[in-house]
C-alpha cells in the first residue's frame, strides 16, 4: 500500500467523521461510557492492591496477653520466641507505649483517649517473621503463638491482606473481562456507525466501484473511522478514569481516615490494554460492515 493511498484513506476517514459529527459524537460517547467502566475497575483494583501492599505487614503478628499476665511473664515468652527458628525479632510493647503509638498514628483521637479512665491498650509482643518463611509456615507459627502461656489473642494482617489482595485481583479480572465484553459492544457500535456512513455515501461508493477505485481506497476510510472511534473512545475513557482518580485523591486528602491510601492513576499497561481492545474493536466493526457491503457488489 502506497503512502499516498494511506494518506488519502486517513484524510477521507477524518473528513467523514467530521461531516457526520453528530453521529461521531454519539458513537464516541457510547464507546467512552462502556470502556470507562473497565478503566475505573482497573483503577480501583490497582489502587486497592497498592493500598494493601503499602499498609499491611504480612510477616508481623501482635501477641496479646491477658490483663492478669505480669510483665515478667510476657518478657519470658518474648525470650522464648526469640530463640525459635524463622523469627526475626520480638519487641515488647508495654501498655503505655501502645497508647503513645496510637496517639502518634491518630492525633485527632487524642481527646477521646484522654477521656478514658484506664489505658485501653493492652501490652503485647510484636513478632516479625523472617521474609523467607512461606505463608503456610507463617500460619502454623501464628497458631502455635496462641498456645503460649498467658496469650489471649494473636492478630496479624495476613488473612486480611490475602482477602483484600484476592478482592483486588477479582476486581482487576472483572475489569479486564468487561473490557473484552465492552470491546464487543464497541465493535457493534462502530459497525452501526460504518453502516450509516456507508449508506450516506452510497452514491459516491457506487461511482468509486465503477471507475475502478482500489478496494483499499474504498474501504480504507471506513476502517480509519473505526480505528479513530475506538481509540478516541478508549482515550476518553482513560480521561474519565483520570477524573475519578483526581476526585478520589482530593477526597482522600481531605479525609484523615483515608490517609492510608496512596492513590495512583491508571498505569500505562492498562491504558494500552484499553486502547488496544478498542482499536481492534473499532477496526473489526468497520471491516465487518465493509466486507458485507463489498460482498453485495
Amino acid at each position, binding site marked *: 500500500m*502506497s503512502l*499516498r*493511498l494511506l494518506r*488519502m484513506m486517513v484524510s477521507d476517514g477524518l473528513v467523514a467523521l467530521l461531516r457526520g459529527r453528530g453521529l461521531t459524537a454519539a458513537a464516541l460517547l457510547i464507546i467512552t461510557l462502556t470502556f470507562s467502566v473497565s478503566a475505573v475497575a482497573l483503577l480501583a483494583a490497582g489502587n486497592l492492591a497498592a493500598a494493601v501492599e503499602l499498609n499491611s505487614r504480612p510477616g508481623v503478628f501482635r501477641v496479646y496477653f491477658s490483663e492478669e499476665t505480669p510483665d515478667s511473664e510476657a518478657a519470658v515468652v518474648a525470650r522464648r520466641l526469640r530463640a525459635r527458628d524463622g523469627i526475626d525479632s520480638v519487641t515488647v510493647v508495654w501498655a503505655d507505649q501502645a497508647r503513645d503509638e496510637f496517639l502518634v498514628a491518630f492525633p485527632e483521637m487524642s481527646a477521646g483517649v484522654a477521656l478514658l479512665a484506664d489505658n485501653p491498650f493492652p501490652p503485647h509482643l510484636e513478632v516479625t517473621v523472617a521474609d523467607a518463611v512461606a505463608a503456610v509456615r507463617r500460619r502454623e507459627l501464628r497458631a502455635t503463638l496462641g498456645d503460649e502461656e498467658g496469650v489471649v489473642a494473636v492478630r496479624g494482617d495476613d488473612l486480611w491482606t490475602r482477602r483484600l489482595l484476592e478482592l483486588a485481583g477479582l476486581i482487576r479480572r472483572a475489569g479486564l473481562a468487561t473490557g473484552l465484553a465492552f470491546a464487543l459492544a464497541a465493535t457493534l457500535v462502530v459497525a452501526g456507525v460504518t453502516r450509516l456512513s456507508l449508506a450516506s455515501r452510497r*452514491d*459516491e461508493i*457506487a*461511482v*468509486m*466501484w*465503477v*471507475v*475502478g*477505485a*482500489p*478496494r483499499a*481506497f*474504498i474501504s480504507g476510510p471506513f476502517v480509519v473511522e473505526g480505528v479513530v472511534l475506538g481509540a478516541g473512545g478508549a482515550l476518553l475513557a482513560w480521561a474519565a478514569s483520570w477524573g475519578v482518580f483526581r476526585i478520589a485523591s482530593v477526597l482522600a486528602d481531605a479525609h484523615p481516615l483515608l490517609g492510608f491510601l496512596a492513590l495512583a492513576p491508571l498505569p500505562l499497561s492498562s491504558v494500552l490494554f484499553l486502547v488496544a481492545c478498542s482499536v481492534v474493536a473499532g477496526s473489526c466493526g468497520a471491516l465487518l460492515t465493509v466486507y458485507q457491503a*463489498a460482498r453485495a457488489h
Partner: protein
Amino acid sequence: MIIFQGVTKMYEQGAVALRDVSFHLEKGGFAFLTGPSGAGKTTLLKMIYREERPSEGSVEVAGKESGRLAVGQVQRLRRRMGIVFQDGRLIASRDVFENVTFVLRAQGLAPRARKERALNVLRQVGLSHRMRSLPRQLSGGEQQRVAIARAVAADPDLLLADEPTGNLDREMSVEIMEIFRRIHGRGTTVLIATHDPFLLRKYRRRVLNLEGGCLTDKGVEITSGSDETP
C-alpha cells in the same frame, strides 16, 4: 478491444436481456450501439465494465476475459475505461472540480497531476468557469459534460457512454458528440449507446443494432476520418 462471443444474459426471473450476442470492436474503433428501449444496450455495456456477467458465452475486454477476473483485476480493468452513465451519476455533494478529481484521486494520482488533468478536461468540455458549481446548479447539458469530463479525465483506453445525449436538445447533443469525436481522435476506443436517429445519421459510424436482446446488425468497422456527414 472488445470481443463478445455467443453472449447470453438471463436473469433469475427467466427474463433474457441478451441472446447469443457476438461482435468485435477493434482498438481505436468508434461504434454506436442502438436499439429501442429495453433492447439490452445498458446490459451489454455493463458486461463490458463487468457490472454484469454473461450467463453463457464470453466477454473479452483489452485481452482479458472479464467474467473470469478477480475483484482486484476488475478494478484494474475499469481504471482503463471511462464510463458516461445515462443519469450522469455525479456526486451531488461535490462540486464540478471535485467530481472530476475524485475519479483521478481514486486512481491514485498525485494532487498536482489531478488538478492539472481536471482543469484540462473541464476546459475541453467548456466548463472551466463552472468548477465550483454543484451539480444541481448546472443544466442537464452541463451535467452531462461534467460526466464526460470525469470519464475522460484519466485518459482511458476505452470510453463507454450510455445514452449520453438522452435528455439533451439537438444542439447540445452535437456539442457532446464533438467532444467524443475529439477523444476518439486521440486513439480512444469509443462505444456509445444511443437511440437518437439524428446522431446516427449525422455521424456515419459503425452501428451495432440490438433488438429484443439480439444483435440484428453488427455494422461495418469504419476507419476514422471517413465518418462524418457534412
